């Protein structure tokens, strides 16, 4: 207590207020998950019964077992999501790192327009462009492969990644570039040996956001451009729990929790970098 700077010391009522605030905030964020979790524990017959019971009566983790049986390919879906996300992330990084560097460190005519154009891409949600996109996917012959999900996924994740990384790279002092230039380093050498290592925290942030974007949110492309069950990602796989007549809610929820667990673990280990990478101001020596 006494080693903490006095400005960070809280009186007892402040601590109560802060925890209350955090509780309210987390309640908002997590309550659907609480509900989802409780649903996953309840037997199907108990789900649709009123009055509402918060705690499941004779709840069990049975759904976490049966979910693997009723949708045998679920493990594969998780793997697919992981696989697709990693490839997407790698491609996005390959494209975005040089582009953000160009936007951050060079001035050329048309830069503003180009940046704006990238933002415009974000304005079209994939849903609206579905049919022309489909034609395109077909003409480049990637339908029903992993690429069917990777190719459009990358395109729609590029703009925000560029925005994020550019902001980060702008803060790297221009002198580092100039120093390398003075020493005869080529632009490319400078990018590789100087900028890349320094921009690492920013790159990690972009990698995380891209990964999550690809992992959880890409549903419509997978659905439309791929017909092969063995390539389907998690979000589509979850729809397998929507039976012919009835949604198997408890298994669906269980599967959702199992499905996001890998991404949660990734975030768990990288969250330090997430906040840190966004925070990092001017690069400190």
């Amino acid at each position, binding site marked *: 207590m006494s080693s903490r700077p006095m400005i960070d010391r809280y009186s007892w009522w402040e601590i109560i207020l802060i925890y209350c605030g955090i509780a309210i*905030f987390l309640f908002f964020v997590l309550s659907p998950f609480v509900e989802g979790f409780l649903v996953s524990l309840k037997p199907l017959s108990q789900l649709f*019964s009123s009055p509402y019971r918060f705690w499941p009566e004779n709840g069990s983790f049975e759904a976490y077992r049966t979910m693997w049986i009723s949708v045998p390919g679920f493990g594969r879906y998780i793997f697919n999501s992981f696989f697709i996300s990693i490839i997407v992330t790698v491609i996005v990084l390959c494209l975005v790192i040089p582009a953000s560097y160009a936007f951050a460190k060079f001035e050329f005519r048309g830069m503003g327009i180009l940046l704006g154009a990238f933002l415009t891409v974000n304005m079209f949600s994939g849903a609206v462009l579905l049919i022309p996109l489909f034609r395109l996917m077909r003409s480049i012959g990637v339908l029903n492969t992993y690429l069917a999900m990777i190719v459009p996924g*990358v395109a729609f994740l590029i703009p925000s990644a560029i925005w994020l990384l550019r902001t980060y790279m702008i803060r790297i002092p221009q002198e580092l570039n100039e120093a390398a230039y003075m020493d005869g380093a080529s632009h490319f050498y400078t990018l590789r040996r100087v900028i890349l290592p320094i921009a690492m925290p920013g790159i990690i942030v972009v990698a995380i956001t891209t990964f999550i974007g690809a992992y959880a949110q890409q549903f419509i492309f997978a659905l439309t451009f791929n017909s092969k069950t063995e390539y389907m990602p998690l979000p589509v796989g979850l729809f397998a729990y929507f039976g012919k007549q009835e949604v198997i809610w408890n298994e669906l929820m269980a599967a*959702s929790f199992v499905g996001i667990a890998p991404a949660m673990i990734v975030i768990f280990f990288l969250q330090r970098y997430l906040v840190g990478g966004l925070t990092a101001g001017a690069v400190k020596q």
Partner: protein
Amino acid sequence: MSAQKSAVIFAWILLLPAVLYVLAIVAYPLVDTFILSFTDASLRKVTNWVGWANYEKIFNNTFAEVILRTFIWTFFSVALKMIIGTFGAAMLNAAVPGRSLFRLLTMPPWIVPMAIGIFMWGWMYNGQFGMISGLLQRFGLVDGPVAFLAYGSTAFWATIVTDVWIGVPLVTIYFLAAIQSIPKDLYEAAWTDGAGRWYRFRRITLPLMVPAIITMSMLSLIATFNSFDIIWILTQGGPSGETTTMIIDTYQTAIGSKKYGEGAARAVLICIFLSLFCFAYFRVTRRLNPEKRA
């Protein structure tokens, strides 16, 4: 001179892969959409050039109402995201035990596949079996089931709340980062002058977060304006069209009714609206940006 020229060339080389990629994958469908908007494309194999007819059609019916609703919906959603994100960031920034756990716990809405998150909310909103109605009844706040998605007003807010919920984690984390990059000595100076916690938050944290708020509200404005899944899964634009936003309307026209031409016109309109809006927004907010700290 030549050095600068080579720098520009290099910049373009760096940009080229990303530009070409986006051009190929997005720009082509975009142009396609734009062209489509002047045709009567539908499931029929033949399409005819119809000029501005699709656009005229849009303005002939209740579209004004949809536009207005879209803006209101977007406004409240973005505003709430900003407010709750700021609140969350402020809370998570407090130096109390457990805060890194709390930070981790804000992430799930972002990570969970959007559709699943929305289904969970659908459950919560269910009048008969859902948590909200159930708990309200349990605590005696209402005497019968309340179906939140049954009425225009409640459904409108229910969809907003869900949209906010999905958007809040990223906003919060971004704001948290913004708060942490505010130099500590500003707070110490204010504290030395007797400013309390709330006063410091109001007069230092908030104004210095303005750039972050501008960036985030801009990005989430675009996302929210285009937010489709939430409304579609929860209400399909109902009841009585009271949650139909432009994107839902576009989807219903293009995909539902298979009027691709008309749908494309609506999509183009959305883009034009958004571009104008973003442009105006930039103009207005640039002046709000606090002076760079030297």
